[in-house]
């Protein structure tokens, strides 16, 4: 279907080139900010949860709870946090930090909206990355870390020379899964970004449901499919090369 129509739907995508550029821009921007953040947080959280402390299991449970929360609900929660009458604004006004609410949503505030989307995605989907990496770190013999302790490595040296290299397989898996999922985020972007922030996946929904144009929707869908496919192959290649080194 993406190839039917006159001109073909895939070509029509480029006719509104401004919109096309914007979509691609926001797609890339959300992915390159969210994923590294999630990865870093997940690695530090994995190291943190190696500590024994009272209530560790409960905190662990809280931390991975968002795995089971839908993206729509996640977006609504963070809307509650950042809307003009949300918790953040009310708290800051109550504390006397600001006199009037700070706006995060709407066309003029797109950059701030993006911040909320990034926070929401980190809140909601870091748990998946964490689950994989934490499982990985558990498999590593604890003595590798202790050997580093004994030989005078500081926290960062241990991270760089021991933890991250040993975690490579888990990090790879987490990256693949997370990147592929990241192309499918629709709810948070529609709910928080409204019609002002568009990514490839929301374009599929928009063209199909609002504009009733299955052809252009298909064209976007094909594009998502191709990008996902190419990225998976690239990842696998990259990791193979990594193994050889």
């Amino acid at each position, binding site marked *: *279907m993406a190839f039917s129509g006159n001109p073909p739907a895939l070509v029509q995508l480029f006719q509104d080139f401004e919109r096309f550029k914007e979509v691609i821009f926001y797609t890339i921007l959300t992915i390159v900010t969210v994923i590294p953040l999630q990865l870093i947080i997940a690695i530090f959280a994995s190291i943190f949860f190696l500590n024994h402390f009272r209530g560790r299991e409960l905190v662990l449970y809280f931390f991975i709870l968002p795995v089971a929360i839908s*993206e729509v*609900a996640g977006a609504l929660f963070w809307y509650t946090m950042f809307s003009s009458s949300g918790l953040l604004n009310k708290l800051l006004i109550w504390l006397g930090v600001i006199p009037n609410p700070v706006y995060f949503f709407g066309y003029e505030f797109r950059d701030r909206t993006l911040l909320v989307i990034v926070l929401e995605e980190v809140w909601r989907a870091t748990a998946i990355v964490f689950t994989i990496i934490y499982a990985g770190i558990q498999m590593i013999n604890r*003595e590798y870390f202790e*050997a580093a302790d004994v030989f005078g*490595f500081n926290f960062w040296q241990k991270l760089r020379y021991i933890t991250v290299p040993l975690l490579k397989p888990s990090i790879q898996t987490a990256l693949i899964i997370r990147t592929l999922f990241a192309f499918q985020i629709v709810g948070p972007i529609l709910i928080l970004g409204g*019609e002002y922030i568009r990514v490839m996946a929301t374009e599929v929904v928009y063209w199909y449901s609002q504009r009733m144009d299955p052809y252009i929707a298909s064209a976007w869908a094909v594009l998502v499919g191709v990008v996902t496919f190419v990225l998976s192959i690239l990842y696998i290649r990259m990791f193979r090369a990594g193994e050889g080194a």
Partner: protein
Amino acid sequence: MRKVLVYLIAFLISLWILTPIIYTVLASFADILDYYQHLIPQKYTLKYYEEYWRLGVGDALVRSIEIGVLTVLLSFLIGIPAGYAIGRLKFRGRNSIQLTILFFRVLPIVVMAVPLAVVFLKIGLYDTIFGVTLAHTAIALPFVVLITSSIFASVPRDLEEAGTVFGLSSLQIFTKITLPLVAPGLAAAGMFAFLISWNEVVASTILTYLNRTLPAAVLAPYVMGMGAAGQLPDPYRFAAATIMIIPAFLFMAYIRKYLTAMWGFCRGEIDMVSVELQNIVKKYRNVTAVDNVSFKVDHGEFFVLLGPSGCGKTTTLRIIAGLETPDSGRVLFDGRDVTNVPAKNRNIGMVFQSYAVWPHMKVYDNIALPLQIKKLSREEIEKRVKAAAQMVNIAHLLDRYPFQLSGGEKQRVAVARALAFEPNILLMDEPLSNLDALLRVQARAELVKLQKELKITTIYVTHDQTEAMVLADRVAVMNKGRIMQIGTPDEIYNRPVNKFVAHFIGTPPINFFTGTVEEGYINAGFLVIPFKNIPPGLVGKKVTIGIRPNDISTSPIEQGIPVKGKLVVAENLGSEFILHVAIGDVVLRVLSKNKPAKEEVTLYVDKTKLHIFSEEETRINILPA
């Protein structure tokens, strides 16, 4: 300090995750005008839920549940047989099927949804419960298959084979044995499938128009409307979010125990030059791992912590290393209090039980990296690596990766790494226990030689008493977190302070039998031994008498008391025999050069080598008359 930090981080994580949820749930019950005015709303009401329900969300909710349940049923119907086949049966193309399943997972639902909608429109499935169910099953199925196949693969085959033996048919085995075993796992998979369906929004949005699922109904205004119309009123947002997370909580509560099991903990171990421990106590929850331990290790001494597993020796070593902080007590290096000094600043070398040779770097780098961290010059590093490698004979292995090494070679690398570091104190945690018997004897001899040459203070943990006797200048025998006795191998062997030490040291183990103290002698029934200095308070008490198998002879000796017995078994050790001789109820083990010809034997018990222990199992020092 560190503890405070840990709790602070734990608190921040909880706050980060829970604040949005709790505040939104709270807001969903608040009167909206009141909510706008107050940070914490004062007036609460259910009216928004009622309104929202009447607006059709109730129907959407019911629809979501129906679709969820149908998705579970359908994905089980296909997924359980498929999972069983992949998990249990071996057939050609199994791997490619697994790959295909994964590939479908990779294909985003965003890509599938539009073509599906077009097809569904043609065949009348568009905007129906069944249509959405089909799409959700397609999403959930790969997960269900992967989860069930791993669950089935984890069921021990012999449990099923036992069923075959007792005459059950294949179907009966499946329904009566396999299925009950995997039921909890399947329940988790089912809940997971439900959750996927419940949370899914893209396919639901595209495949429905009037008959929305809950997430699609919530999202609908954003999809269909523009500007202000494209927004849901605040109270409805809160209510929708609250309703939607309920299954998430239930699901997570259910799988929590699996997660805990999956993420169970393994513990590791370590230690360092003049080392002094003062009243060290370490508790884990209710277990006291180290109970008021004190000792001093001198410069250049080879000190062995010996005891059965779980006796606290490794924890003691780890406290010396700085890998654990004691609950109370002090650790002193050369008189300096290092109790709160982290491991990295203690300048210790350590050889781990698993060797902990980092698997991702070559032998050279394994030895060199700690020196690089110490910021030594390249020449110095090379010099030290080479020298250390020479010492333990691994100079030819420097270019290899650990996986190319044998266990004995890895152990040498671990020792070389510790030596190249030039530590003040060398700690070893059962470094030989992973080697086979012959290699262990050889490595043991090398360790002794090396330590004597280098004169490095060494603390060595082992459960092997032979190792302790061979290696140690002094031994500390531990049991249940306490030091039982500290002394040279000779002292420990010849004058054990209690029954535990007497029993733990020496092979074959010491013989014990009971006796009663009387005026001037101890009566063990078959044996009456006169003693000189029996304290009057002891008369009439029961005691345990110990005698080592090599202190009993089959031929007359000077201090020997003759006893007649019957030979039960003679174990041949090659150069000697362990004779088991029955004397009434008591069976004595006797070490003997040769096997007696007759069943009737006379034993000579060396009365100067008897160990007498009180009812409290401590040594009583009395001399035979």
